[in-house]
Every structure is written in C-alpha cells, then in structure tokens.
C-alpha cells in the first residue's frame, strides 16, 4: 500500500526514525523477519545490513546518518531504498524528540 494511502507521511532521509515499538525482528542468515504485532504483517528484511540499520535508527538524529554509520557503501543504496517500504509497513516510524 502506498504510504499516502495508509495515512503515513512519505519517508524523508533527513528525519529521525525508530523501529516501531510493536515490531519484533528475528535474525536470519539472509537478513531478518520483522513482525508487527499490531497489523500482523510479516515483512522480509533482505540483508543483515538492513536489519542492523533498522535496529540502529533510534540512535541517530537522521536516517541518513544511521545509514552512513551502519551500512557498507556497497549496500547503502539498497538499504536506503528499502526504508520507505518499511515505513509504509510500519516496521519503522518517525521518532519525535520527546518520544
């Protein structure tokens, strides 16, 4: 579902994000499985680097900085392209300063 239809704002790399609190991630060799206990969707995270960056988003002021710090250059584009999809699926969400 496109993000706009879901009532979720479009992904912006200059904002702060975090893994959605109702999402659990199971590590797998290929990457990981993210399960959202609210909407009960299972989402494939298709590389270990993507799992790593999703789990690290909360530690960085912007998604861009999280990607730069945690993802090897060769995988940066693939991980960056995956984040809007993960926002639409509510695997990640915008993090507000007070939250």
């Amino acid at each position, binding site marked *: 579902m496109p993000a706009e239809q879901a009532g979720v704002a479009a992904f912006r790399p200059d904002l702060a994000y975090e893994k959605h609190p109702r999402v659990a991630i199971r590590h797998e060799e290929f990457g990981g499985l993210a399960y959202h206990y609210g909407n009960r969707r299972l989402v*494939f995270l298709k590389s270990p680097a993507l799992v790593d960056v999703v789990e690290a988003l909360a530690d960085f002021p912007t998604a861009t900085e999280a990607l730069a710090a945690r993802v090897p250059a060769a995988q940066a584009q693939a991980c960056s392209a995956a984040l809007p999809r993960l926002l639409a699926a509510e695997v990640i969400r915008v993090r507000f300063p007070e939250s």
Partner: protein
Amino acid sequence: MSTALTNRLSRGLAAPICLTWELTYGCNLACVHCLSSSGRRDPRELSTDEARRVIDEMHDLQVFYVNIGGGEPMIRPDFFELISYATQRDVGVKFSTNGTMLTPAAASRLAGMDYLDVQVSVDGADAVTSDEVRGAGSYDAARRAMDNLAEAEFGPFKISVVITRHNIGQLDDLEALAAAYGAQLRLTRLRPSGRGADSWAQLHPTQDQQRTLYSWLRERPGVLTGDSFFHLSALGEPLPGLNLCGAGRVVCLIDPVGDVYACPFVLHEEFRAGSVRDSGGFAAVWRDSALFTELRSPASAGACSSCGSYDACRGGCMASKFFTGLPLDGPDPECVYGHGETALRAAPGAAPHPGPGHSKSGKARRQPVFVTLGRGRDHGHGADTPS
C-alpha cells in the same frame, strides 16, 4: 518474491515462519477430507504443562504466531488457558474451528483477546454443499459461530473453505458470505492426506476448474490462500505468496502428541522429524533432525526438469505427490499441464497407507466414508504468508 530469497528460504530458517499445532485429535465432526483423520482424543496428548513448555519454546525462537487446529481445538478443556498463555508470551494465535463450540460466551471471551485470529470452516456457501463434506448440521453450526463472533464485535474473522469440485462454482457466493460478515475469505487446497486419501479422487477440482480458480484468485489478491495453490502459478503470473513447498524449510507441524512433521499435510511416519518430548525439545528437531536437513538440501526437479514452468510451480505439493503414490521429484498430481494425471495412470495403486488415524469409526481406510456423491473435508493449515 525474488528468486534469490526463495532459494534462500528453501535452505531453511532459524525457526519456522508458520508453525501449525494441532492441539487434539478429538473432534465432534468427521469431515471426509480431514488431514489428520481426527475423531477420538489420543490418551498421549500433550498435557497442559507440556503445551505451555512448547509455547515457551516458540517464544524463545521468536515464532511470531502459531496456527492452532486439530481435531477441534476448542474441545480441549485447557483451550482458553493455552491461547491466553501464548498471546501473553507474544506468540500470536490463529486458530481453526468448526464453530460448534463457539457460543456467545466464547465469542465474547475471544473478542477480548489481542493477537488472536479465528478461522471458521465451511466447505460450501450453503448447507447442502458444505454438509456433504462436513456432516449434517455442520454448516448451520458454523454460521451460528459467525453470528456469535459478529455479535461480540470480534472484528474481521476468517471464513476458511477447502476448495472441491462441488463448491468451486460458489466462489462468488463465498466471497459475498465473507463480505456480509466483514470477514476475510480463505481458500485452501484439498489434499489427499488423512481421510482425504479416500475422497480426493472424487473431490479435487478438474483442470478446467483449476484454471477458473487461478483467474479468480489473480483478480482477488486479498483472498487468503495460505500459499495453498502455488502449483497453479505454472499457468502464468505467480499467485501472491512464497510459491514454494515450505515443508521443513519455513513450515512444520506439531501434532497433538508432540510429534513434529514436515508440514500439516504429511502426518505420516516417513515425514516425522522427531518430538517436542525429545531431550532437545522442538528447537533441536527443527534445527538438527535428519529429515529436515534432507528437505533443506537442493532438490532435483526430476521428471519436471524439462518443463519450462518448473521455476513457477517447483513441482507442486510434496504431500499431494506422496499420498497419491507419485515420486517426490516429479509432477504434482494436479499439475496444470496434466503431467501428474499421466503419471498417476502409469502407476495406479502406488499410494502409501496413511496409517490408522483417530477416526471414530475405527474402520480401516480405503472404505468409503459417508460420501455418496463425493465431497471432501477439514480445514487447511498452510501459511497465510503476507506478500
């Protein structure tokens, strides 16, 4: 789903994506297609404490949800205790029921729980069609259960239908039935497993009906199928889902006595990987059993290797091949190009004995059950994998 990921999944995962757990062999119905030949409870069924330990293991392995079936799971006196415990431990529950015990009080109780999905089984859009498979009065009982869920404001439950030659003409009616309840429709494939071994030949859809079903499902990606019909993907664009046999790779089954099988459709000694009662518990069976290791190794396409559609259907359903006596590295008996039918004609009578089962009649199989015109039953238990 990318081919690279599909290939990776076929080599297995740290834990199943979709775990089916049949809580009991006890059932007050006797559907002619029951995958587990259920009827009588087994005195060796897992105790409440043992079942709680299984749930603890699922929690530790991050199995996010479990598909609970049977038999009729609500027959177990500790049914509510177990599903409450599972959801408290972050193991979501989807359970299949014939609805006969889903009273207004039970519906209210279910409506108050989180992480819970309910699937009510019918096998037709009217009592005549459905009862022929599931027994007299079963359709009305299931409809009462749906009414009770709606009355209790449970939310969008699921209506689960095994597709047969006789109900496939009712797809639009089934869709309308689900819509009337605000429910989701779930269609699954009839397997020649359990009592289905006796009814499959008469009940499985014809080739024309399979093509109709494929087109109907392609137009309705919101209809759940538990990846049941991936053999139809050989007809063109793939259906939503993983499109692979997940047996021992991404799915498995725990039966009421704790035995672990490769999938919900192969309750047969040959596909028994171990038991949750073994010293390493479920985790060791999943990780280390010889059977699952074998299933995760690269499979030969066998007789299908020269077929241009192999990448689409991957040879179809292992259980359907096994219980019709076909080689596992060949075509599915319902291969959309007829290769399975050809193979069945070439090797008639090769089907294995499915075992004694827990049918109340206690009759040896190969005797007709009470199907007269031919119709099959029980619910499917595949994964409804989100696309």
